[in-house]
């Protein structure tokens, strides 16, 4: 597999306001992500997952190290890395459709006509065609998150970065959106990095799970879920539950052990 994204020796330290105490968030950390992979980040709260993801997205600058996308060194945010935030980031002054269309606004690779088509395509994909003219402060949280996902997809990023996008949603909505995302993923093969606290969500969606240590983040384990549970079986629900539960138990054990370190620290 070709290295689509290459993270080399990236580290980040936050300093307190008075500059006296340092918080090492990301150790010098290296990893590679192949094109089309769905990588799920798991790890104890506060270990640095969001920070690492924001560094990949160019919204945060690392102290050391480099990130390359298709061999090109990245600096700062741009349209190649689309971000879906945990909080609702759709624009309340625009309708559902105009929000999604906003994703195409700064694209120069397609015509105005194609922008309309792309907008309708993704609006349909996330099942919001019926709500096209609703302002996004009039729709539910789950719908807003679908707007944000569709908007990001409409901007045609090379990499999709999602930081606990379903974290604030109820269980049913989350499950529904997970299924939708699996669908989109199967169709678009979009390279995705996804942060979650939900182990089952990670197993369902991942081609690979990366488990981080407590802060400062270091990779404790990588699991190629695709090798253990075929992705099609996860999509159609025919997966082997025994393998699923065993994997879940393994992952939880690792995270609990790491979480214990977090508690010892404080």
């Amino acid at each position: 597999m070709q290295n689509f994204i290459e993270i080399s020796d990236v580290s980040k330290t936050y300093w307190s306001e008075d500059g006296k105490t340092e918080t090492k968030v990301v150790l010098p950390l290296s990893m590679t992500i192949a094109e089309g992979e769905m990588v799920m980040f798991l790890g104890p709260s506060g270990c640095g997952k969001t920070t690492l993801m924001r560094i990949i997205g160019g919204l945060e600058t690392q102290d050391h190290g480099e990130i390359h996308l298709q061999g090109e060194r990245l600096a700062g945010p741009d349209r190649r890395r689309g971000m879906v935030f945990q909080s609702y980031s759709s624009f309340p002054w625009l309708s559902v459709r105009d929000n999604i269309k906003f994703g195409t606004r700064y694209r120069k690779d397609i015509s105005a006509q194609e922008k309309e088509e792309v907008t309708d395509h993704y609006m349909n994909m996330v099942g919001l065609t019926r709500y096209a003219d609703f302002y996004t402060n009039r729709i539910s949280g789950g719908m807003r998150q679908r707007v944000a996902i569709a908007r990001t997809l409409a901007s045609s990023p090379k990499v999709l970065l999602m930081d606990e996008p379903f974290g604030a949603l109820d269980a049913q909505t989350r499950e529904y959106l997970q299924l939708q995302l699996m669908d989109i993923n199967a169709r678009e093969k979009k390279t995705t990095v996804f942060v979650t606290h939900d182990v089952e969500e990670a197993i369902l969606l991942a081609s690979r799970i990366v488990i981080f240590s407590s802060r400062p983040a270091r990779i404790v384990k990588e699991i190629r879920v695709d090798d253990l549970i075929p992705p099609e079986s996860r999509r159609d629900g025919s997966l082997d539950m025994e393998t699923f539960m065993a994997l879940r138990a393994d992952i939880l054990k690792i995270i609990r052990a790491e979480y214990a370190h977090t508690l010892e620290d404080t």
Partner: protein
Amino acid sequence: MSFSILAFRKKLPRKVEIGLGITGFLLFLLTWQLIAVSGAIRPEFLPTPVSVAEAFVRLFTERDFASDIVISVRRVWLAFLLSVAVAVPLGLLMSTYRAVGALLEPFVDFVRYLPVPALVPLLVIWFGVGEASKLAVLWMGTFFQLILLIADDTKRVPVEFIESGHTLGASNGQIMRDIIIPAALPNMVDNLRITLGWCWTYLIIAEIVAANSGIGHMIWSLRRFVKTPEVMAGIIAIGIIGLLTDQAFRYAHARWFKYLHR
């Protein structure tokens, strides 16, 4: 039509709200009338609503009050627009670029605490008693407040909105035009409405101290002849103008920002 007037923060039917607003005014007028006719206060100090209404008509027929109103309204809007024209761009820059904020904030805060009436003598020395000094008083009174209000409005735009813009490929200028300004605009319009109200306060101060025209000047010169009904009519005229402007702003707000009004 079913509604409860006791429900917390629930909107009432429009007709009921307007009715209540009118009732508020009527209650005020009734109380005023009762106190005035009770004889507890001499009519030179508290004329009845009716004699004030008569004075109101006299102001227009005998004293050409309409041209005073035009002069005052023009002063208010001219100063207000001058203030907006500078405060809005600067406020946007202040909240967007930390350097501009760090440069201006302490100074703006300092000037903001200077009592504007105390500056009037100075402004008259600098600008004379003509239009310039009136504009200067109004501008001083509103600009330094407005710039901070605008900066605050823009600061409250969620950082996710801005970061979304970056990851959707927008340039800084595009983020300002397509995200920050539309996101902050409703609050800005509200703050403009409030600032315009302050303009009237400073206008009257300016017109009382140094002017030979305008509503403030008219009120102040009538005072000398203890024309209490006329003085009160003049004050009420300001209230009516304020109320109408305020309603116009609210109407525009509801039209422009439909998503905020159910």
